[in-house]
């Protein structure tokens, strides 16, 4: 029964932040006083729910009967030929309902929304994966749903906009700032402070003010718990490296937590290198940023000398974010995890390679982790074993891919 969800994902552990949400110096609550009451309410509700068998069982039931968990673990031998001959296994979050890991967190938070007696949910989205997942959970549970999405992203992810609208959500294009994920979060926070009595802000990544980083992580810990049991079963041992893409960092923190207490397993996050670090156009927050405060928490941040946020860039809308979840900052500074970069070009090469060697089209976000795995596999050599979190599927990215590879041209 090793492939059952980890029913202890919500139990208190040594990896929880302190009472005020600090992971070392990171995390906390840098938020307007007007929202502190709602954050306190949410933290108290989650503290009750995480120990309530009824809540945990309902969450696990939805993961199994609705989202389709456990997701598969698939070995990728033809892809691995390009990774120095190391064995490569893919954790297939792309096979979940709605096509990515995001469904785990939204089901958990939507259930919490019902418990709090709130009827309206707002969310931000970059690539649209979290927006689609949120719209899905709201349809399932009968909640009103408003999704804020940067105008730039509504254009490059038009398919997901249509999906959200079909599911009954209102999608609001955000025209301020860089018109991407960061600004969608700003606009969602402005909505929340205005409507906090009736509204839950269903944040899509393990970032933001306490309790979001803790809560979102725990909703995604099922990924790591399943993957650990599956790889022991299929490969007979723990992997040398677990790798995942990092934008805000929710899929990475979810899979990392399955292995964080296994000192022999390296945890490697792959950040979007965009046009290359030297170009200045990237989203490599942990690799290139400095600690600061954005969207409610202390964490690494792309910022200038005056503390103004620097706009991130990535071909992948879901990684196009200048901040990162505070626990990743903590894992970086303690040395438990390492963070590297894959450029647009490296990610797109890996994207096409996986399609052609394994018949799996990954999300461009996840293709960054695949690009990282190619390098890690070559470093490890034929004895190596790499576990990649394939966090989402690539259907939504076909326009971008067709343009990038020139498939539209005759």
């Amino acid at each position, binding site marked *: 029964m090793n492939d059952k969800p980890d029913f202890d994902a919500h139990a208190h552990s040594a990896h929880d932040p302190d009472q005020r949400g600090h992971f070392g110096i990171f995390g906390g*609550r840098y938020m307007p006083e007007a929202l502190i009451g709602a954050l306190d309410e949410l933290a108290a509700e989650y503290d009750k729910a995480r120990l309530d068998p009824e809540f945990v069982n309902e969450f696990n039931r939805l993961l199994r009967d609705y989202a389709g968990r456990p997701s598969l673990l698939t070995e990728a031998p033809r892809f691995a030929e390009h990774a120095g001959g190391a064995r490569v296994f893919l954790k297939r979050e792309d096979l979940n309902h709605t096509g990515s890991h995001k469904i785990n967190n939204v089901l958990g938070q939507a259930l919490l929304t019902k418990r709090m007696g709130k009827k309206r949910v707002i969310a931000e989205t970059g690539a649209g994966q979290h927006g689609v997942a949120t719209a899905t959970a709201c349809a399932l549970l009968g909640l009103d749903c408003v999704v804020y999405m940067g105008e730039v992203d509504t254009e490059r992810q038009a398919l997901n906009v249509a999906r959200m609208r079909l599911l009954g959500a209102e999608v609001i294009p955000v025209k301020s*700032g860089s018109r991407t994920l960061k600004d969608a979060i*700003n606009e969602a926070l402005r909505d929340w402070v205005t409507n906090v009595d009736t509204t839950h802000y269903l944040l899509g990544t393990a970032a933001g003010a306490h309790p979001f980083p803790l809560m979102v992580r725990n909703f995604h810990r099922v990924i790591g718990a399943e993957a650990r049991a599956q790889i022991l079963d299929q490969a007979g041992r723990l992997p040398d490296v677990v790798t995942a893409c990092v934008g805000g960092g929710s899929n990475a923190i979810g899979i990392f937590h399955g292995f964080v207490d296994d000192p022999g397993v390296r945890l490697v996050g792959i950040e979007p290198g965009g046009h290359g670090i030297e170009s200045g156009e990237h989203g490599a927050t942990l690799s290139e940023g400095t600690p600061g*405060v954005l969207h409610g928490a202390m964490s690494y941040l792309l910022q200038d000398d005056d503390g103004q*946020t620097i706009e991130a860039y990535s071909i992948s809308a879901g990684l196009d974010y200048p901040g990162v979840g505070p626990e990743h900052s903590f894992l970086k500074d303690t040395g438990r995890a390492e963070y590297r970069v894959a450029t647009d070009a490296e990610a797109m090469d890996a994207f096409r390679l996986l399609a052609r060697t394994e018949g799996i089209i990954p999300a461009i976000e996840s293709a960054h982790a695949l690009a990282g795995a190619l390098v890690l596999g070559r470093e490890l050599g034929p004895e190596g074993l790499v576990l990649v979190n394939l966090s989402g599927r690539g259907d939504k990215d076909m326009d971008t891919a067709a343009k990038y590879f020139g498939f539209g041209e005759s």
Partner: protein
Amino acid sequence: MGLEPLFAEVGAEGRAALVGYLPAGFPTVDGSVDLLRGMVDAGCDLVEVGVPYSDPVMDGPTIQAAAETALSAGFRLQSLFTVVEQVSAAGGRAVVMTYWNPVLRYGIDAFARDLAAAGGLGIITPDLVPDEADDWMAASSAHGLDRIFLVAPSSSPERIARTVEASSGFVYATAVMGVTGARDQVGSAAEGLVARTREHTSLPIGVGLGVRSGAQAAEVAAFADAVIVGSAYVTSATTDGVAGVRALTEELAQGVRRTPSTIG
């Protein structure tokens, strides 16, 4: 020291203080000095000098646009201290209103030191609550600056008690649940929030968010110690420059001097 003399003076006149906000560097650094000096000259008891910031989550479209204008014009944080210095040199009293990350990046103690040296009296911190403010408590004490934290209609009695305990100078009560922006009506929650806050402190209490007219100023002045106006100043500066902010100040200054019975 700090803002205490100001509130003693306006209290002696039996009225509320008028507090006006504009971002530094809006529309340019020199332009913002002219505007703020005009506000002081026309009757603002205190000016809030805002720090333009890339991600102003507590601000509505008007102040967002002003911050973008300032940043696009090349505003750098160092100019903030120049603006405060020039307002103070002209006889004005100034506090700074800033999101926390620019202060963090500059260095909390260095920021407090340089602000105090420029003649600034304190900082209003819209996204810093006392829970995370240990370093700011130390730096403000070391440099003699007031700490103006915010209370909101959603604040519990425990939160209000904790916030006023950490505050000095005055307490900023946000009149409505929402972002900055002029409104036709000041929230009905404001008066109740001020009353709930007074149960925990003898500090002056200022009310902001939504005030734009003399009549509204008079209404708020009936129950608060300071009337805080922001977006309406940005709008008047945008349309009519120094003349605009002077005219608005004169209207609001009359408002804070009107007795409640004359509101009608």
